[in-house]
């Protein structure tokens, strides 16, 4: 456990050194927040209560999702490119040789990265949004606590999906095509483009059951108090935990298949 905490701290520090990149990211998230906020205002003025949100809640959705974007690596920028590169160069053999579990190692490193992104890239856009628009942020500390638990579970689900993608490098020599597809899917199905509650009919129910919903839509709804009561909260967090377990399990299976495939060249 101490080992993985050290790995996580390393992940945090590593991203903390990119000061300019973080500032540039904060700027980007804020600019996008403004643009999307104006389109949502136009949309919710036309249709008040769309997707079960009033206008302030819709605006909260915009700004909090900008704050979670980098932490959840929803537009890429996580570790999967790194795994793919290490498989391509053969450095993955070193990782397999370590007295640590490969999946846990990368999970710890990615959680450290996410923790930094949450603080470094999350707070400023949210403050900017709260100053410029009327947001519906809760005052109940318990709600915020539940939100943080939900965000953490969402980050684990996001990790588990990207770990599967990273391992695909053992079979596909070049991961850029897969990564691009993954980005497209995660932006659309997480609720980043439009809250999933706005998606109509059966298609809407389908997208709300997919793992990407656990990355953004569920934490957002927990924050906005859409899962009221102990039962509602348990259902929301249970949905996330369920996907986390299934996907981490799939990652373990794929990992053991992949390590059997490794051929280490001496020299």
């Amino acid at each position, binding site marked *: 456990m101490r080992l993985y905490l050290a790995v996580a701290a390393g992940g945090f520090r590593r991203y903390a050194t990119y000061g300019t990149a973080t500032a*540039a990211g904060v700027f980007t998230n804020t600019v*996008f927040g*403004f643009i*999307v906020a*104006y389109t949502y205002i136009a*949309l919710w003025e036309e249709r008040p209560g769309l997707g079960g949100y009033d206008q302030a809640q819709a605006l909260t959705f915009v700004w909090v999702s900008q704050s979670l974007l980098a932490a959840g690596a929803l537009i890429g920028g996580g570790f999967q490119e790194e795994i793919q590169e290490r498989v391509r160069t053969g450095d993955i053999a070193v990782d397999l040789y370590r007295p640590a579990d490969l999946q846990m190692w990368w999970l710890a490193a990615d959680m450290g990265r996410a923790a930094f992104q949450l603080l470094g890239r999350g707070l400023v856009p949210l403050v900017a949004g709260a100053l410029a628009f009327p947001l519906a942020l809760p005052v109940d500390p318990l709600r915020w606590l539940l939100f943080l638990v939900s965000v953490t579970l969402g980050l684990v689900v996001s990790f588990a999906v990207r770990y599967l993608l990273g391992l695909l490098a053992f079979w596909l020599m070049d991961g850029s*095509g897969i990564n691009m597809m993954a980005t497209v899917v995660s932006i659309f199905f997480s609720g980043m483009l439009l809250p999933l509650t706005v998606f109509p009919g059966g298609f809407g129910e389908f997208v709300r059951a997919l793992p990407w919903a656990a990355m953004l839509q569920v934490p957002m709804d927990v924050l906005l108090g859409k899962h009221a009561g102990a039962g509602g909260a348990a259902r929301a967090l249970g949905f996330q935990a369920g996907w986390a377990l299934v996907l981490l399990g799939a990652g373990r299976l794929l990992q053991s298949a992949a390590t059997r495939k490794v051929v280490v060249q001496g020299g």
Partner: protein
Amino acid sequence: MAAAVTATVVAAPAVPAAERRRGRVREGLRGYGLIVAMWIRSTMTYRTSFALSVFGNATITFLDFLAIYIMFSHVDVLGGFTLPEIALLYGSCSASLGLADLLMGNTDRIGVRIRDGSLDTMLVRPVPVLAQVAADRFALRRLGRVGQGLGVLGWALWTLDVDWTAGKVLLVPVMIVAGAAIFAAVMVAGAAFQFLAGDAAEVQNSFTYGGCTMLQYPPTIFAKDLLRGVTFVVPLAFVNWLPALYVLGRPDPLGLPGWVAYLSPLVAFAVFLPASLAWRAGVRSYRSTGS
């Protein structure tokens, strides 16, 4: 011996300045073409991945547009604009950004190259640095976005009931090309900024990708100050808003006269001047990170 050297030095400027500049442009284009050809060959090594990336690239814009389509399953107009009208905005700016991204998009990698020192190798090669940076990792898959944009634009033009005149017909292709040139100039300026700020590729993205996200929607939904900013400061409004409003026969929310719709090529040229000056200043100020 010394006299001979002096003679050569003096002889060099005998070639007219304009001709030398043209020579450099030709040299730059040739170098650009060679590097692009190399990257295309390298991409084609992994054909499955290439096919997936072209498809993925086209799908990005498709899902973007699907989100707008879903919005319109709940409303009839957004900011007073119908879905085909927004499709015109969406398609034109997507095609422009796609073209600029295809030709110049990798200039944003310069921050990484400054950090890891690999820009040094580019400086000693006999090809202008901008041509090398622009062609760096040239990604043919970006044709996917151009195709998607043109597809949506085609659907919009087919569906819309436009009162066509010769000027309006001419304005559509001009809007795409000038829009691409404006985005490309922003990309060059962004790359120049990275000499100053280090790895700040995302700032560039907020003007290009962020700008395009904004230009997909009608200008009527944004605050007036924002509109002034993207008209007079970073003139993104000339990418598609002003020409498209003219084609649609709608007034500009800032009250600009109709003929400004035709200014996009001039504006593109005007933004390239400061961008290229900034780029030259950036390259001159470059200090290698060392070994």
